[in-house]
């Protein structure tokens, strides 16, 4: 087995296989109300408290399209650089299940609202374009709960009728790492647009994963299996690795792969057959006669285009051009909209004499470490962009050293304190008076004559010792650059 980021290859008996992956991502539309009813979509409410007569499919109840959800889908389509269809049709997908009150799901089958588009992935080897086949709107189902009552299944319809966007990729992905990058990029674009919060823990983003394998170099697609409803990137990756190897094993044993739907068992780390192609549901799709075809004018699309914010790819380009930071740094900073916002605010607050290098390092270094450690989103950062910018400026103008800055940073977290105040209250201002520092250094050399001689004789390592002594004597406040200069002169 060999592996790099953009390819996942499996070697068996001199054959090298590559894995081909396509994803059907189900993204919950950010909207206060459901796709065809006015019920709330808020996560975590008491069971069956956000259910209208329409959601519970009472007799004579009719769906009425939520225009906001349509706008959200179009915006997402624009973000995926996709074709927005002027006419799309809602179809009924018929099947029986306890948490599907209508006995059908309203979805879009033949005529989706959004057509072909693409997404750019930033892989370590360079950029990769992944094709989008389509995006369509559909209703979510409710939730069946099997483990509360020993003899009954309980049904919670809060989720029933919530708007989902199903985003179908082309089979362009070739490795678990690309899947990771793809999901993160989709999530990023939708979060920039405000069309999906991308919260995988709350089920706002889930995917059906289509996996097939083929001899590397072959252009024909192998028989695929669809792994249903995987709700974390890690599980998607595990499922792909398991499934690809299972398929290769079958081929190597001379067996056929059945096109089937499989489930990923997260506990056993394996995929299991759910139903074969022969058992596949006949969903009897047909246009929903309760709804008229959805007609969208070019003016409407143009209006929405004008409301689209700067998206990650453009932002990255601008960051590189405007702030002269590296592509790698820009990728990190734009990957999440809140990070990008934070960074831009820091840049703005730093003012004219800004230091990009410091800003990038402090955000991706100290700040990220703290956020990771405490498991906090950057939107709720304990240190505001304004105060971080101040701290960076204090370093930049020589008021404090980088080392002292780290101490101050720790102190700032206790209630987002202004670093200037900490510097003043604790007297942490950097000593940059050359005369005072010279006196201090003279004293140190005097106290360590033998070491000074050794240094002069060639033991250059001892330079660090003198720097350390000087810093110590100044209580860490001495300007390290000045110390270096003076020491070099004096020793």
């Amino acid at each position, binding site marked *: 087995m060999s592996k790099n980021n953009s390819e996942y290859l499996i070697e068996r008996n001199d054959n090298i296989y590559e894995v081909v992956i396509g994803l059907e991502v189900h993204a919950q539309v950010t909207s206060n109300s459901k796709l065809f009813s006015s019920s709330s979509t808020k996560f975590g409410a008491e069971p069956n408290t956000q259910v209208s007569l329409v959601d*519970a499919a*009472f007799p*004579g109840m009719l769906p*009425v399209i939520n225009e906001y959800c349509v706008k959200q889908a179009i915006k997402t389509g624009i973000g995926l650089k996709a074709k927005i269809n002027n006419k799309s049709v809602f179809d009924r997908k018929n099947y029986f299940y306890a948490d599907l*009150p209508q006995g059908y799901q309203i979805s879009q089958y033949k005529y989706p609202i959004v057509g072909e588009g693409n997404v750019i992935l930033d892989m370590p080897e360079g950029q990769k374009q992944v094709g989008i086949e389509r995006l369509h709107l559909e209703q979510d189902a409710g939730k069946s709960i099997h483990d509360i009552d020993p003899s009954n299944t309980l049904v919670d319809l809060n989720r029933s009728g919530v708007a989902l966007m199903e985003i179908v990729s082309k089979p362009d992905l070739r490795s678990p790492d690309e899947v990771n990058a793809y999901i993160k990029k989709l999530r990023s674009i939708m979060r920039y647009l405000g069309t999906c919060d991308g919260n995988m823990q709350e089920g706002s983003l889930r995917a059906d994963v289509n996996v097939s394998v083929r001899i590397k170099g072959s252009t024909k697609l192998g028989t695929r299996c669809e792994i249903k409803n995987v709700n974390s990137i890690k599980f998607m990756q595990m499922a792909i690795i398991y499934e690809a190897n299972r398929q290769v094993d079958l081929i190597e044993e001379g067996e056929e792969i059945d096109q089937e739907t499989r489930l990923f068992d997260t506990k056993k780390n394996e995929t299991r057959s759910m139903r074969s192609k022969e058992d596949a549901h006949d969903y009897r*799709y047909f246009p929903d006669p309760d709804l008229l075809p959805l007609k969208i004018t070019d003016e409407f699309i143009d209006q929405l285009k004008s409301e689209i914010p700067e998206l990650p790819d453009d932002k990255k380009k601008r960051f590189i051009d405007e702030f002269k930071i590296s592509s790698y740094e820009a990728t990190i900073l734009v990957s999440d909209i809140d990070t990008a916002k934070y960074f831009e605010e820091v840049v703005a607050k730093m003012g004219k004499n800004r230091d990009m290098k410091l800003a990038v390092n402090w955000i991706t270094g100290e700040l990220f470490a703290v956020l990771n450690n405490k498991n906090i989103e950057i939107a709720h950062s304990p240190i505001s962009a304004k105060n971080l910018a101040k701290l960076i400026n204090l370093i930049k103008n020589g008021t404090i050293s980088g080392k002292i800055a780290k101490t101050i940073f720790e102190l700032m977290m206790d209630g987002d304190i202004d670093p200037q105040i900490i510097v003043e209250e604790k007297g942490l201002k950097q000593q940059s008076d050359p005369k005072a520092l010279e006196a201090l250094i003279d004293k140190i050399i005097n106290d360590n004559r033998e070491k000074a001689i050794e240094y002069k004789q060639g033991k250059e390592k001892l330079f660090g010792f003198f720097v350390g002594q000087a810093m110590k004597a100044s209580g860490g406040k001495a300007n390290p650059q000045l110390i270096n200069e003076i020491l070099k002169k004096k020793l």
Partner: protein
Amino acid sequence: MTEITSLSLFELIKNIKEKKISSNEAAKSFVDRSEKSKKLNTYVTENFENCLKLSKEFDNKPNFDLKLPGIPIAVKDLFCTNEVRTTAGSNILNNFVPSYESTVTQNIWNEGGILLGKLNCDEFAMGSSNETSFFGNVQNPIAKDLVPGGSSGGSSSALAANLTPVTIGTDTGGSIRQPASFTGTVGLKPTYGSCSRYGIVAFASSLDQAGPMSKDVKDSSILLEVISSFDKKDSTSIDFKRNNYSSELTRNIKGIKIGIPKEYRVDGMPDEIENLWKKGIEYAKDCGAEIIDISLPHTSYALPTYYIVAPAEASSNLARYDGVKYGLRSSGESLIDMYEKTRSEGFGEEVKRRIMIGTYVLSSGYYDAYYLKAQKVRQLIKKDFDEAYNKVDAILTPSTPSSAFKIGEKSNDPVSMYLNDIFTVPVNLAGLPGISIPAGRDKNNYPLGLQIIGKPFDEQTVLNIAYSMEEKINYKNNITDWWME
């Protein structure tokens, strides 16, 4: 003075407004007569006590500006009524009490109408004789053991028997017009999109339309004015300017062009229907209309098209009756077992037959050959009418190919039952307004109806032609009250 129950809606309103009759007196009369008419089996659920109470309340605080001031009205049991059981004629909804009101019935209550009760109908409106109802056959007041037509059979029977001054039905393939024709009454199916479908138990969504049923044309115009409204809760409701149908009603139809479609002269049509049609043409001429022969070439495909489209939609619309949320639930070993038992016990034969037809025509591999083809033919049928309306203002046909038949006569022969709808289904497929008015009698003295089909949203012309012809035809039902002890 004539009995209150035999007054037309117009006369009843007049009397109430002139304070000659109180709402409560009217309610009492209809309740009394309904109580004595249980043999007709028109009511599934009676709302008599509440109706009497509400009529008193109306009289205490009357509002004579309303269009239906304190008028008791019984409605087909397909309309959901707040806190009054709504069954759709089915065992599966036997215990179902809605917490909401259909838009059409709400419009009636808003104008002062008072619910008298819920009227029997074919199960989920699937039938042409009211024999598929879980709640049993309905008698046609015209003669014993005669079907009242369907699916709005309880409505037509109650109306003809003077148990309600007017009523409302729903019409998917003829379910208002055919029972009207069988009972010597007037039934109007408005243009698709005129009356909201919100709160009406769905049969076939692209065809279902509520409409008035009444003893004369004027009454239908009054009721249509009340029930027709644009409704945001129904995405297929259409926002067009609605006439004041009753005040704009006129017998001046001079010069109006009425088309006679040759394709409606079907094989095996009884002479008496043919003669009725001829007579109708003469009446129309007498009214000053110009008669023009037209062709609707795809007429013969209408019935098979209908019996693909309607069951397809029904098979999906009825999937919600699964025992999980409301209505009947039979106990089962597993979810699937519960579904099977609930739906086996909950649905009757005809409903099951249509669910199976609908499931079949939508199945992969058959969809293109049946459902898709049917949709294409539907467009052709619509086009036929569009082209005809370049030449004429309305179309005159018989309402049904026969008069009312005996209970049990056709219940084991679904195809012959389906043939009842042959003249009415094209109108639903094309979404047009159509009215049936009584126009004569067959050899048994059973009523026969003529159908006037109009342009989309042109209910006014349809009503005006019907109003003029009604005067010339001068048909009167001869009801003997044979069912009363």
